[in-house]
C-alpha cells in the first residue's frame, strides 16, 4: 500500500495546526494508522520527510507509544482492561472469554483479520468497570456474556453502539477521528447513570431537581 497524495495533504493540514510542525507527529502517525491499519515503514518515512526528521527519529517516537502498532490491526480492535479495578470486577474473566472465543492472545489478530485483541491498561473508566473497548470506543460495565455478544454482533456485521460514544465503526475509521478529523458523531448520546450518580443523589436529596 502506498500513502496517497490526499493523505499527504492531510498530514500537512495536521502540521499546519501547530506553531511547530513536529508537534503534529502523534496525530500524523494516527492518520497513518487510519490509512494503513498500522504504522507502516512507509508511513514512518513519509512523516519523516514531511516533518524534516530522520526516519530513526520518527521510529523512536512511534515505538514509544502503545497505540502505534507495528503490524496491521484487524478490522476491529478489541481492548479488555485488566488493570486492577477491572480485573477484580470481572475483566480477567472477560479477557479469558474473548481470548478463547477469538482464539487470540494479547496483541494478536484473528486469522480472518477481523479482530485484534489487546489487554489494555486503565481506560479512565473505573466507575464503569469492567471496561472493554471496541476501536477505543467505551463498552462499559461489561460481563462475559455482553462481551461475547459484542464480538458476535461485530462478526455478524450488526450495528453496535458504544455505551459512551459513537456507533461502532472500524479501527481505521476511529483512528481518523483520533488523528483529529471530524466524523459527525459528536452528538451521539453518551451520558449514563454513573456519570449522573452524584447529580441524581443531589436531586433526590434536594427533592426538587432543577
Amino acid at each position, binding site marked *: 500500500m502506498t500513502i496517497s497524495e490526499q493523505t499527504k495533504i492531510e498530514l500537512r493540514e495536521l502540521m499546519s495546526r501547530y506553531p511547530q510542525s513536529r508537534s503534529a507527529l502523534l496525530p500524523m502517525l494516527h492518520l497513518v494508522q487510519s490509512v494503513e491499519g498500522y504504522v507502516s515503514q512507509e508511513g*514512518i518515512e513519509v512523516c519523516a520527510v514531511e516533518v524534516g526528521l530522520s*526516519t*530513526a*527519529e520518527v521510529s523512536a517516537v512511534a515505538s514509544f507509544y502503545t497505540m502505534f502498532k507495528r503490524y496491521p490491526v484487524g478490522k476491529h480492535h478489541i481492548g479488555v482492561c485488566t488493570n486492577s479495578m477491572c480485573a477484580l470486577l470481572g475483566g480477567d474473566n472477560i479477557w479469558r472469554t474473548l481470548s478463547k472465543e477469538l482464539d487470540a492472545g494479547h496483541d494478536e489478530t484473528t486469522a480472518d483479520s477481523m479482530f485484534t485483541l489487546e489487554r489494555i491498561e486503565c481506560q479512565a473508566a473505573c466507575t464503569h468497570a469492567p471496561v472493554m473497548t471496541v476501536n477505543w470506543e467505551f463498552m462499559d460495565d461489561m460481563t462475559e456474556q455482553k462481551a461475547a455478544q459484542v464480538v458476535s454482533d461485530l462478526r455478524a456485521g450488526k450495528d453496535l453502539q458504544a455505551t459512551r460514544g459513537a456507533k461502532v465503526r472500524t479501527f481505521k475509521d476511529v483512528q481518523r477521528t483520533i488523528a483529529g478529523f471530524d466524523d459527525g458523531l459528536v452528538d451521539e448520546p453518551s451520558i449514563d447513570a454513573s456519570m449522573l450518580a452524584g447529580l441524581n443523589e443531589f436531586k433526590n436529596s434536594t427533592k426538587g431537581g432543577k
Partner: protein
Amino acid sequence: MTILANSNQPKSNDNDLITAVIDGIAVRVPKGTLAIRAAEMLGIEIPRFCDHPALSPVAACRMCLVEIEGMPKPQPSCAITLTEGMQVKTQNSSQVASSAQEGVMEFLLLNHPLDCPTCDKGGECPLQNQAMSNGRADSRFEGTKRNFQKAININAQVLLDRERCVSCARCTRFADEIAGDPSLELLERGAKQQVGVADDQPFESYYSGNTVQICPVGALTSAAYRFRARPFDLVSSESVCEHCASGCSLRTDSRRGKVLRRLAGDDSEVNEEWNCDKGRFAFRHLMQDRITTPLVREHGELRPASWPEAIRYAAEGLRNQRAAVLAGGRLTLEDAYAYSRFARVALGTNNVDFRNRTASSEEQDFLTNHVAGTGLGVTYQDLEDAQVVVVIGFEPEEESPIIMLRLRKAVRNKTLKVIAIDSANSLGFKKLNADLRLTKPGNESAAISELIKDLQDQNSIILVGERLASSHGAFSATVAVAEKVGARIGWVPRRAGERAAVDAGLLPNLLPAGRKVFEPRDREVVASAWGVSVEHIPTKPGLTQLEIISSAVQGEIDAIVTAGVDINDVANHAAFAAALNKTFVVSLENRASSVIEFADVVLPVGAITERAGTFVDWEGRLRTFDAVMQESLALTDARVLHLIAIELGHTFKDDAKVTSLRSSYSSLGAVSKPGTMNLVAASTTKTGLVLAGWHHLLDNGSLQAGEPHLAATARAVVAKVSSETAQANGLISGNRVIVRSKLGAITLPLEISEVAPETIWLPLNSEGSSVAMQLQIDIGAEVSVSDGGAI
C-alpha cells in the same frame, strides 16, 4: 581548604563566584557549575554513566546521586548547579548517597550480561570498575535477563550489543547534539528501551566512532577492533592525526609493533575529545604496502640496495643537475624544513613546491603574505567566539571535520552565524544552518565582495579552503573584504602537512618561517640558522609545480626529488608522468606509490607512527608528537636528506634530528604582520556548464586503503545539478549522467540538488569519480554533459 575553579569552567568574573561545600570542603566556583564538576575539582570522584561534560545533562542513570542539605531526596549531581552555601554530601560522607548509588548499581547489573571476559570493554569499563568498587558481591536477582539478538551493526563499522546497554543515552545525545546526525536513537519504551537505528537505515555519520569511545559499557564496539585485543595488552601513545589539517590529538593503541586501534585524544583547544571516523579507523596504511629496503633502478628494474649504495646512487644522480623538489602536503614540519633546506643548499635551487593539487600564483601570493610563518592565527576558540564565520571554497564537514564540530557547537549555542560561498549545498552546510550563497565556480570573487554588508561591525572570520586556488581573484577579493571590515582570515588546507610546508618554505619564493627568497636580510637569517654561508641560498626565483613539470617535459629539469606525492592527484598527471620519465627521480616514500614506477632511487622512510615530529594544523598550532613505535629503526625524511647532502658535500649546523630541526625552525621566529599581497581582479565569468566538486571525507584517498568497514560508510557517489541545469541539459534525476571533458568522461547517477547555476557537481576522488584521473581537468573547467540512461 578552598579550591578555586580552573579555566575550564564557564567564564566568570569574581562576583559570579559562589561558595559551596562538598564533603565538608569549601569550593569557590562560577555560578552554574554542576556539583559533579565541582567535586571533580576537589578530586572527589562521583560515579556516573550518563554524565558527559560535552553533552547536555539528562540525569537519567541516577548513578551520581548525592545528598544535599535541605532537599528531601538524593539529587543527581550531574544536573544540580551549585548555589551559594549549598552543602553537598557524596558517597564519601553520606549514607543516603552511598546507599542510593549501591541501589542504582544493583539495578544496572540486573539485566547486564555476565560476558565481561569476552567483552571488548572488559578492563576499561566504567560499569565493571564501579561494580567492583560500589557493587554488591552477589546478585539478588533470580529472574531471566532481558534478551536481545546479539550484536547488530548500526553501521558498517560500529556494532551494538543491546544487552549491555545501560540506556545512558550518551551515544544518542552525541549523534544529535555534537555530530548533528540524529539517526541513532532510543527506541521503544521502559524496560524494552534500546538504542537503535531505523529499519534498513544505518547510523550515517562521519563521527560514528566517537559513540564507541563514549559508551560507558561495551554496548558499542568497532567492527575493526572487536575481539582483537584486551586493553591491558595494549601500549597507548599520544599521537596526532595525519589525515587532515584539523590537527586532532589521538591515542594510538598498539601491541607488538602493530597499531590495533586509535581513539580521539583529549585536547580542549583543538578536537575537544572527538575525532572523525577517518582519523579513528583509517590506519592500516601505516602497515600496508610498506617499502622496507632502499631500491635502485638497474637495467630498467628496481632492485633492493643497501643504504650506502642507494644514498650514493641518489647523490650521483642529483650532483650538479638542474633539480627540483616536489614534496607533497603530508610532511611534518621538521621534514618539510629539511626538504626546504636540502633544495636550497644541497641542490642549489628554489624549484620547490608542495602543492600536488590545483594551485595558482595568486594563492602563492596569499600564502606568502598571509599564512607563511604567521604562527598561531585564527583558532578553534576564535571560531566559537565569532559572530559570523564565512566559509569559502571549503566544506567544513568534508574537508576538516573538526572545524565543522566546533562551528556547530557555536551555532547550537546560538552565538554564531555561518555563511557559505560554495557551488553546492551539503549535509554539513545544513547542519550548520548555513546561509548558503550558491556560486558558480569562477564567480566567487563577486560573491565575496558582497560580504561586506554581512560582516560590517561583526566579529567575523573568513575561512578559505584549497579549492579557492581554482578561482581567479577569489583570494584577492577575500583579502580586500577582510581588510575593509576587519575580519580575520583562516586558511584551511585539506592535507595535514600543507600548513607546515608553507611555514617551512616549500614554495619557490619562500624560505622557512615566512622569510622571502628575494629579501637579502631574510636569506642571511636563514643561512645563519642553517649554518651555511648566504651564497648557498639561491636568489634565482624557483619554479612552481606546474612549471617544474612542464620544464622537465621540455628537458629543462634533469632531476626531481619527490616525497609523498601521487601523480593521480593532479589533472596534468600525464605530463607529470612524462616529466618523471624524463628525469632522474629520487623518491622518499614509506609505501608503494604511483611515483615508484618512475623512480631511479627509492628511499624508504618511516611511517608517522615510527618517528617523532610536528604537524601544523590549520590554526598554525604546532602539534608535536613522539614515535608510537619507539623501537622502530625507520629513518625520517630529514635524516635521509641529510645523508644525501653529506654525500653531496654539504653540512649544516645541526644533525637533522627532529628536535634539532624543530629548534632551528623556531629560532627563526614568527612574522609579525601580514605582507602586502598583489590583489588581482577576477577574470570574466565563464559561460557554459562548468565542473564543481570537493573531496568526500571518505573516498579513494590512498591513506584510506585497506579499510573495508570504513569505506562502507562513505557517502553515495552521485553527480549533482540543479533542476534548472538538468532541464536545460536534458538530464533526468535518477538516471545516469555522462560528464565529459576533452580528455575523458565520468558516468554517475544524477541527483537533483541545490547546486549553483550552470554547474555540475562531482565528488573529486570517489569510486567511479576520480576527476583528475578521468577528466584531467580542474574544478571550474568547462564540461559537457548528456543523459546516460536509466540505471
